[in-house]
């Protein structure tokens, strides 16, 4: 089992060739080994007259790793993330987090996994940043005594201090994206799924995101990052994959 050193992640590091299979492996067996995220032979099709979106995708992420999945528009990246998040179900196969599938134990699964969908949706326009985070902490079932601290930590970690009492509909797109990212990391998940997370972020926002990812990897969490092309791929990913024809291949 390969655990990355925290130093391996650097925003401005030069692109490096890594042994992608060491950090993020295509599962070849159904053996009972548990991973922070395992996608097991997932098949998804939207309609019978359309080709498979995902055609038996297998993927396992080792603790402390950052994995990138790319591919052209409509290749199935977001579908893969939605299945991994437990939002939609595959026709066949399953996603597991430490051996737990969403069907077996939904609450446990959703406690371990956090998903940042693409776009700018998922916020209550009329709530302030602080109220939004408090609400999210509550429905994420953060224990009562920790809610205030978790919200304060998220506000500090994602540079939202000046915006804390501002309503979402009065914020810029980049500020909203920072709030969405803060919500993703607030409950302290072990597995984070990011769909085009750099959308609308300036360099400062991107740096804030990378620091959050670094902290997560330091405690052996994992990140699965999907984006269509090599945006800012000067970042060091432990593994890079491309979805094409419903299948994963090393990038």
């Amino acid at each position, binding site marked *: 089992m390969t655990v990355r050193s925290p130093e391996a992640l650097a925003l401005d590091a030069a692109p490096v060739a890594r042994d992608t299979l060491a950090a993020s492996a295509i599962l070849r067996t159904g053996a009972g080994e548990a991973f922070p995220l395992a996608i097991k032979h997932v098949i*998804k099709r939207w309609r019978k007259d359309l080709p498979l979106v995902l055609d038996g995708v297998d993927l396992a992420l080792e603790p402390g790793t950052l994995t990138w999945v790319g591919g052209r528009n409509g290749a199935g990246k977001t579908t893969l993330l939605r299945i991994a998040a437990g939002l939609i179900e595959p026709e066949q196969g399953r996603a597991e987090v430490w051996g737990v599938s969403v069907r077996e134990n939904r609450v446990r699964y959703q406690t371990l996994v956090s998903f940042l969908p693409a776009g700018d949706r998922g916020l209550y326009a009329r*709530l302030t940043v602080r109220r939004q985070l408090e609400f999210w902490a509550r429905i994420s079932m953060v224990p009562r005594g920790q809610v205030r601290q978790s919200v304060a930590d998220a506000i500090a970690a994602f540079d939202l201090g000046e915006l804390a009492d501002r309503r979402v509909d009065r914020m810029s797109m980049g500020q909203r994206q920072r709030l969405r990212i803060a919500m993703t990391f607030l409950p302290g998940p072990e597995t984070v799924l990011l769909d085009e997370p750099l959308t609308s972020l300036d360099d400062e926002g991107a740096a804030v995101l990378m620091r959050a990812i670094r902290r997560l990897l330091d405690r052996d969490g994992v990140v699965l990052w999907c984006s269509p092309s090599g945006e800012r791929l000067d970042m060091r990913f432990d593994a890079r994959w491309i979805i094409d024809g419903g299948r994963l291949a090393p990038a």
Partner: protein
Amino acid sequence: MSDAITAGHAFLAVLRRDLSIFLSYRTRLVSQVLTSVFSLTLFYYVSRLVHVSGFSSPSSYFGFVVVGISMVGVMYSCFSIPELLRQELVAGTFDRLLLSPFGAVRSLMAMTLFPLLWSFILAATTLGLGCVLFGLQLHWSTVPLGVPAMALALLAFLPFGLLFAALTVLVKQGSVGTTWVIALLSIVGGLYFPVSLLPHWVQTAAKLQPFTAATSVLRHLLVGSSIGEGAGISLLKLAVFAAVLVPASTLVLAAAIRLGQRRGTIIEY
């Protein structure tokens, strides 16, 4: 136990969220109170104009209809749940509820709290305005019993909102059929006139839903109207509706969400 407490706080967080959003629209409160005043004024003068058989005086019909108007507000709140869900789907916030440990079904149950509580407050306000502005005579000795009766009525109404929410999950339209259902229930529920004026077969249909029983028992407790089948039977009806339909509608809602997840349509809006 601690999970139950945390879930309880999540329920309250949804209530607090909805209150914050409601209060952020500053004119909404004034607008709803004014609507009540206009309805009261309209029916006050209608009660003076028309002699309705079965009512001893214009005031007794006015008392009858004020409770009916209050119940219309409750009914609208109940059927607003699908539209609220639709707003969550469009805003993408439903995905977040679905992916939270609290979950979509409990979140939707919690989302019913604010509209129902608010309709309760608005109903009380309507009655209060009826007293202050138009001299409505309340039956003060039994008015306090109206509070638990109303709570039971809300529980009996809740499944209708949840069932329409399940429909919204599947067909993505918030108000599909709700307007017709509210209009129909207003008639067969006897909100504006006694059910006894309706054809016999409609009177039978009126007994098959909880709105008629709830309105009758609340009228009895609040304005002292006579109640045909007895308050105890009406309350029992409401309890049976709540006991059977709340779990059943929750299961239907959960099944609709699961179907949407299996089809992949849960993300559509």
